């Protein structure tokens, strides 16, 4: 079952789609999220978030002042600014 990923900034939704893996860096260190991950809320450090799509291609976004929340294969990344 794929992950449902959303990246949103206050001004718009930046990305929305399915992915097989999401990796990001929290205050504690790098974090990889695969389907079936436990519910999690994390503070991200400024930097890149990469999303691996179902076909294996990776997309990277730069997120500032962000959070990551995971709940039942639903990953939302909130950034003050993201691109």
């Amino acid at each position, binding site marked *: 079952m794929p992950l449902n990923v959303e990246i949103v900034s206050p001004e718009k939704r930046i990305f929305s789609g399915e992915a097989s893996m999401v990796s990001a860096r929290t205050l504690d260190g790098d974090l990889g999220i695969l389907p079936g991950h436990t519910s999690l809320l994390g503070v991200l450090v400024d930097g890149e978030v990469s999303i691996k799509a179902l076909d294996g291609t990776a997309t990277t976004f730069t997120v500032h002042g962000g959070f990551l929340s995971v709940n039942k294969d639903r990953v939302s990344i*909130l950034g003050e600014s993201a691109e």
Partner: protein
Amino acid sequence: MGAQLRIYRRRMRSVKATKKITKAMELISASRIVKAQTRVQASTPYATELTRAVSAVASFSSTKHPLTTESDKPIRAAVLIISADRGMAGAYSSSVIKEGDQLVSLLRNRGIDANAYLVGRKAINYYRFRNRAISGQWSGFSDNPTYEHAKEIADSLINAFIADAQTDKNGVDELHIVYTEFRSMVTQEPMAKRMLPLEVVESSAPPPSGALPLYEFEPSAASVLDALLPRYVEARIYNAMLQAAASEHAARRRAMKSATDNADELIKSLTRLANAARQAEITQEISEIVGGADALASANAGSE
């Protein structure tokens, strides 16, 4: 051309010029309402996600945070009033300022002083003219606010809130926000809401699958809350500013529409008056000619 007729014509020309301006402003505002509404909608996903996250932390950890703690004895409150930079919007600014005044007197009855934080030139001028103290002011973006503006405002308000109100003159125990809520194209209502201390409402619509699962926090619940809550305040201020902007455009459109309608009425009645004046002039000229001819005829008849 008679003097009366010339005056009517001149007034008609000036009313027509005004009507062109108000009509243009009406059309501009109408197109901007749509844009402003789109921006309100575009900010919704972020607000929803943020609210979900905040209520998750609030429900699964008993962490205390300065932003959620009520003061036992509040003595000062910040009141953020969001008004417009420009006029020509009917009662938009004055009704939001009036709502703010009501809130201030309500707070005073509870024994709380109010520090005014103002957005928009209209509110700033109103306070300045009455020599009232202003704790913070921002202007120049009321019709098109960005998140950066909201963040700047939120930062200074959060700082005032965190400062101790008992010892610091700028510190406040509560934060209230007064803005105009955009209900629909025809209804906008000035609103006063308390923003801080936050009352975290556990998500109004519970997820269909029942209770939320236990969350893990990275690095800890306290630090997640630390980072989340200021964002939450920012997002709510941003949302209020966007709604206020949409309301401003709607109010301006309505004001300009009635101005255009009035100009139409005025032109119509002036045309009637000008026609009557022209007819009176013609009648007078004819009677003068007839009178003159009569006088000539009777003079000639007398000499013969």
